[in-house]
């Protein structure tokens, strides 16, 4: 892991913590951005953590770009020593895999896909060496995921699965991006899962849909009344496969203001996790479903 600092014009510094994705790179990103926030450097206007990199926007009338760069470099040393323990939350997100809406959409854009003769999820299962789509869904919904970045569009979470690299699912993006993606599509590109927070263009493979809105500018949805964006970096997500009946019921519950996402506060320690990944994940899921 070699940190690379770079100016983005005269108002941004882009910091690449690592060229490749890993939980270590993500945690270093998180500790560095937290440290920047805590240090309250004058002139900083935006602190944006991403998967294995982050970006600071600043007012160069207040702080000179070179001085800003020195401030960030001095923070890196402290972040290296950070223990990588975070207080966060684990959230269960229901997913209706192979739903009719993403299916209709993916059929419309078949000519932009690597494999026009199979669906996105059949393609992803095959190139990741799963015997069946069911086995693929078991893997996708089995181990939990870290929200490693929120962005692209309002409130969209990028998620990285909490398994060792050999078990990471990897898929390419569409050959040419679609001009349409249903709202709340559960997607996949590179090594990242996502949920499309709004309807729009997209290049990620489409596996299913969640009934649970994650962005509400009107703030009418009960659990988004305090803030319009649901996710923040560091959240842990566990998918729960559901069928059509459960999906319809959840949609009705959301509309009636009855839907309450299952959320538990948890402590996550990176070193303990790495020592026993499956055991640690089992404990996280236990915390989610326990009382």
């Amino acid at each position, binding site marked *: 892991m070699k940190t690379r600092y770079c100016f983005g*014009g005269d*108002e941004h510094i882009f910091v690449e913590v690592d060229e490749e994705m890993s939980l270590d790179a993500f945690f270093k990103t998180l500790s560095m951005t937290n440290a920047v926030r805590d240090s309250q450097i004058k002139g900083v206007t935006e602190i944006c953590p991403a998967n294995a990199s982050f970006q600071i*926007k600043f007012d*160069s009338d207040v702080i000179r770009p*070179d001085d800003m760069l020195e401030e960030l470099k001095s923070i890196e040393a402290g972040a290296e020593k950070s223990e990588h323990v975070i207080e966060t939350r684990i959230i269960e997100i229901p997913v209706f895999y192979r739903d009719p809406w993403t299916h209709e959409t993916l059929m419309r854009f078949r000519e932009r896909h690597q494999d026009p003769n199979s669906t996105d999820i059949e393609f992803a299962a095959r190139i990741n060496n799963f015997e069946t789509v069911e086995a693929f869904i078991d893997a996708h919904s089995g181990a939990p995921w870290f929200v490693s970045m929120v962005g*692209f569009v*309002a409130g969209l979470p990028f998620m990285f699965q909490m398994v060792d690299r050999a078990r990471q699912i990897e898929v390419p993006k569409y050959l040419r991006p679609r001009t349409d993606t249903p709202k709340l599509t559960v997607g996949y590109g590179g090594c990242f899962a996502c949920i499309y927070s709004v309807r*729009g263009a997209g290049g990620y493979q489409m596996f299913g849909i969640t009934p649970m809105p994650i962005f509400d500018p009107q703030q009418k949805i009960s659990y988004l009344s305090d803030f319009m964006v649901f996710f*923040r970096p560091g959240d842990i997500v566990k998918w729960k496969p559901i069928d059509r009946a459960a999906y319809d019921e959840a949609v009705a519950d959301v509309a009636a203001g009855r839907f309450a996402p299952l959320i538990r506060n948890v402590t996550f320690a990176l070193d303990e996790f790495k020592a026993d990944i499956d055991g640690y994940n089992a404990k996280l899921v236990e915390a989610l479903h326990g009382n």
Partner: protein
Amino acid sequence: MAINVISAGLATSVQDLGRPGYYHLGIPISGGMDRYALRAANLLVGNDEGAAVLETVFMGPELAFTEDALVAVTGADLPPRIDGEPREGWTSFTVEAGQVLDFDFLKAGARAYIAVAGGIDVPLALGSRSTYTLGALGGFEGRNLQPGDELAIGSGGSGAAPGGSVPQHLRRLPDVPTELRIITGLYWHRITEAAGRNFLDDTWKVAPEADRIGYRFTGGQPLKFVPRQPPFGAGSDPSNIVDGCYPYGSIQVPGGTEPIVLHRDAVSGGGYFMLGTVISADMDLIGQLQPNTPTKFVAVDMETALAARHDRVALLNEVRATLL
């Protein structure tokens, strides 16, 4: 009720200076693409420089006023008319209750800013009145104006007199052909030396896909990449990176073919490499580029960028001194 929208033009939205502080959640800053013109429009009608105005692109709206108002139109040369009678741009004028403000054909530039004394009164959303259409956030019901909309005017007007005018030499619009100054970097090292030279030597043209999210350019040579083993999670295309943040003004080149410069409604991040960033002083000019405008990207250093930044502030100070 104070302004009835009879026709809305191509894309007319409420904008102020923007909504900083939420980019880390994918909510971009939004606000006027040409903030110099937006500030000047507000100054002309005696508003705070950051009051909410209407931003209109290529083709102006038709607006019926139901109360007397002081109005100014700046930015693109999109000549305003009151009941069909021409009015001067960059100059404040009175509109009386019952009169209709509309616009002649666009002569130069792309985006005009219509300021009304008191400001356009829409609710604040996360501290700003700017419209972010992709997120249906802010502005008038989170969207561009439509015929039949009724806009309220704020009560904070200063009682400025009509006839205030920004001198000709301060009416800033890009030259055609245009030069955009950039600081190279970010993932510049992903392309070959020859590709880097070509990128800066080629004349690009603004593509039809140019909006508040970003401006696309075509016509230059495809970029050649330095060969690599794709880093884990980046994706197999040579233009892919592990999804990261996109600076405002950053230049991404998906597949190495057509550069896109992100602007005020930017997507906050993604998986395409960027080869540099347009300097802050030139960002206003991008919002005034019409499709097909020949454009060159000129590499400058940080000192030049900061000097240009100060020049832009000095220009704005001259506008302030003229009008206050």
